[in-house]
């Protein structure tokens, strides 16, 4: 327990988390500090490309084994199953109607790539290795949750969700997935030699760039919180803090079953615990326009993301270490 506390403090005292806290504070204090939208998008392209190529190179180095396939399968299963669980929890803990509950649930089955990136950063600081293919697992977990949520809605009858082939294409070929998987493939092809050529752009400055990105995420999360205070009932707040832990524990158990080593088990835990705030909201706006973005964005971006970043990550790492004895 002592180790957990010191782990949490180390995490809270890292430049990454402090940058995020600065952003939240600036937004809550209504400072006019803003990050240009284009810069935030460019930074996220950089981060996705960097993490993808590094993952691919690591796979090229260590080869592919059965674990990869099993972990991707586990990720897809978690992404599809977690919304059903989240839906039940929401029904029990809040007064959301079916449509809104399903929309929120979709976010918790899917993943937050920034939380994942922060997780790899925590591993790096702690000196724990992880499998490069976890990047592919992250990409695979983005979409299945949406399917589950749409099924939940359609089961309830009513006007239902508007889903067409075009929407599926948009979800499956959304920018983040294409970039992540594309850079991953590039990493596999070019290997360590190719990475060396671009190392001083994609590897060395990575953590600093992540600081600025988290500063912006803090601004966004803080602004979102300020605007949606009214939306947040105690029940929703409790869900936003409980669900990531529940999801994380299930992810960790799946990792145990597959026999993942500490680092990768930690990352699967993080993915399961994290909630989407980019791909899923866009899909929900198109397919379930009646669901209120104020609810699902506030929860995933304003509550769960900060929780995971600050307290969740050390907690999940302690869990992963305990389970694997690592």
């Amino acid at each position: 327990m002592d180790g957990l506390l010191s782990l949490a403090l180390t995490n809270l005292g890292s430049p990454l988390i402090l940058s995020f806290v600065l952003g939240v504070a600036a937004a809550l204090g209504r400072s006019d500090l803003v990050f240009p939208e284009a810069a935030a998008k460019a930074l996220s392209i950089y981060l996705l490309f960097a993490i993808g190529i590094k993952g691919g190179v690591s796979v090229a180095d260590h080869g592919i084994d059965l674990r990869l396939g099993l972990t991707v399968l586990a990720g897809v299963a978690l992404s599809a199953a977690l919304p059903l669980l989240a839906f039940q929890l929401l029904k029990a803990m809040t007064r959301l109607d079916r449509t809104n509950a399903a929309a929120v649930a979709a976010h918790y089955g899917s993943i937050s790539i920034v939380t994942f990136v922060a997780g790899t950063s925590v591993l790096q600081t702690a000196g724990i290795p992880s499998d490069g293919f976890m990047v592919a697992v992250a990409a695979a977990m983005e979409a299945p949750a949406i399917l589950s949520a749409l099924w939940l809605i359609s089961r309830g009858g009513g006007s239902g969700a508007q889903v067409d082939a075009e929407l599926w294409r948009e979800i499956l070929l959304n920018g983040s997935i294409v970039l992540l998987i594309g850079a991953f493939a590039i990493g596999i092809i070019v290997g360590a030699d190719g990475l060396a050529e671009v190392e001083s752009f994609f590897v060395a400055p990575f953590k600093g760039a992540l600081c600025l990105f988290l500063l912006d995420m803090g601004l966004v999360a803080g602004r979102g919180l300020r605007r949606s205070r009214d939306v947040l009932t105690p029940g929703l707040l409790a869900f936003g803090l409980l669900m990531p832990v529940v999801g994380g524990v299930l992810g960790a158990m799946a990792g145990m079953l597959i026999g993942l080593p500490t680092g990768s088990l930690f990352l699967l835990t993080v993915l399961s615990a994290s909630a989407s705030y980019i791909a899923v909201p866009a899909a929900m706006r198109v397919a379930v326009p009646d669901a209120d973005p104020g609810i699902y964005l506030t929860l995933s971006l304003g509550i769960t993301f900060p929780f995971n970043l600050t307290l969740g990550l050390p907690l999940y790492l302690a869990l992963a270490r305990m389970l694997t004895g690592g």
Partner: protein
Amino acid sequence: MEQHDAKRVVITIETPMQRRLLAAIEEAGVTGYSILPVIGGSGRSGPWSAEGQVGRAGGMVQVICIIRPDRLDGLLDGVFAVVERHIGVVTVTDCTVLRAERF
């Protein structure tokens, strides 16, 4: 300078619906439009700003169509089918244009 009557239709709509709106516009036989960025706003669903977004889910755009008056009904029908269940504002203004042969 000779001017001709026309209608200026302005549709403010969420970015995730942009592609579908443009498809509907084209289906209504209108091939001319311009898209302007919207950086913030407020409505029944509360205020928002482009800087307060991470994804494109929350952003909006303004699509402007200059059309011949007789095309208005067809366009509005097509647009309404898309906008109906979504947030979005549609306004129509009378205007005049140079070079009517282009519309």
